[in-house]
């Protein structure tokens, strides 16, 4: 049973031995086609879940580089919005789905490429080389 299954029965949940992990979607660099309202909704739902910055090109030509942390989906695109932080502005901002012409997953995906197996391989390699104080370090902030 995979995590793609949306609903479990109580019995299935109680008997579960190992919780299924979540498949990581490789979205970095992706430029979704926004041909329909549903395309817009799906692209912005993925942008909300993405742990990197995205570029939003508005219909008036403005481009916003932002981290999208929230979304509200109403009955129409005009009633739906995403909420974001930009690297320079201090405040939270919102833009309506209906104003968005293009979405690009331009920023580095901060949740990608840090698999447990990579840590184990690195650990074993360094250990075999006699290294001490082996560690993973957080990404630099600049």
């Amino acid at each position, binding site marked *: 049973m995979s*995590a*793609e*299954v*949306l*609903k*479990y*029965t*109580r019995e*299935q*949940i*109680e*008997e*579960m*031995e*190992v*919780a*299924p*992990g*979540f498949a*990581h979607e490789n979205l970095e660099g992706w430029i979704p086609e926004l041909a329909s309202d549903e395309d817009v909704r799906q692209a912005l739902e993925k942008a*909300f879940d993405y*742990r*990197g*910055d995205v570029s939003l090109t508005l219909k008036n030509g403005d481009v916003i580089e932002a*981290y999208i*942390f*929230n*979304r*509200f989906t109403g009955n129409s695109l005009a009633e739906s919005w995403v*909420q974001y*932080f*930009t*690297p320079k502005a201090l405040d*939270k901002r919102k833009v309506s789905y209906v104003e968005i012409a293009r979405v690009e997953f331009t*920023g*580095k995906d*901060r*949740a990608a490429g*840090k*698999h*447990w197996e*990579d*840590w*184990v391989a690195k*650990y074993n390699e360094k*250990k075999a080389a006699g290294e*001490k*104080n*082996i*560690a*993973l*370090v*957080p*990404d*630099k*902030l*600049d």
Partner: protein
Amino acid sequence: MAVPISQMWTVATYVLKKRMSGEKRYPLVLMLEPLFRCNLACAGCGKVQYPPHILKKQLTPEECFAAAEECGVPMVAIPGGEPLLHPQIVEIVNGLVARKKYVYMCTNALELKKRLHEFTPSKYLTFSVHLDGQRDHHDFSVCREGGYDIAIEGIKAAVKAGFRVTPNSTFFDGTDPNSVRAHFDEMMAIGVEGIVLSPGYSYDKAPDQTHFMGRARVRRLFRAILSNRKKSWKFNMSPLFLEFLMGDRNYDCTPWGSPAYNIFGWQKPCYLLQDGYVDTFKELMETTKWEEYGVASGNAKCANCMVSCGYEPTAVIDGFGSMSGFWSMVKGTFSMYKDKHALKLLNESAPHGAAKLVQIAKPEHALEETNA
């Protein structure tokens, strides 16, 4: 139970007042995340994978105080990120203590020893130190050799200085129950107030997606760990929550019991899942579709969750909400949970050969399901 009487009294009267006023949903602990920046890169953590401009953001002390007052909880946990990296963390903690909130300052303790002098011991302040078991287990879990020794130095210094200290452990698949019990012995010998523990949550952004236990395995592991207890062990948790982990109780999640507030706002629906944010606590309580979350909902994202932030509020409300619940809590506090079957399971659980890789080794003998 290691929780001081004054804290128990505060929580008990809070729960009773809420019940008497007819409130069906109310919070117990605010999960206040003042920043997401961390000085570790743990494989099981899904909290810190953000772009640098987000990691540089932090809540102001005023925003922290407003959140605590807005939701009205008696207790505030400060996780993150690593709270000691927040330049105003002392002001935040002091402000919450001045408001008579019982504060659990979560830390990996890498900076604790050198920052300790900035804090003042108080019955309202507890350092909740992230420690995932014995030395090799912890170091491998947090992906940093030497992390355990630094944390232990911090714990010892804090205990010596008169602070309340609770080691806080998260356990994933492959955990050796005998090692965990030895870890409890070591912690109690240091003089900590009590132990806090929880199974890990399957964060979808965590680097390790293969070592999250399902519920059946969680119950077996915790039954092996928590049965046949030693008198010296103390837990800074509800005994009923521990019984839930051992499979003696069936509880549903209380996601509103530990609401989370961070730089994005109030997090829907809980501390672990991110399904959106709202600006006010009232909005969180009134607009979240609670029926879509928790084990009863069948939601796949809640399927393996038995984590303390969702289920300990259920246990606390159960314990302080009725005479029978209170009596169960009293009995649980003094019980050693003698269980021959669990002892057999414990003795059969093979020690891991490659101790330094214990977190990735599969148990050679799966523990049997007990009475869950």
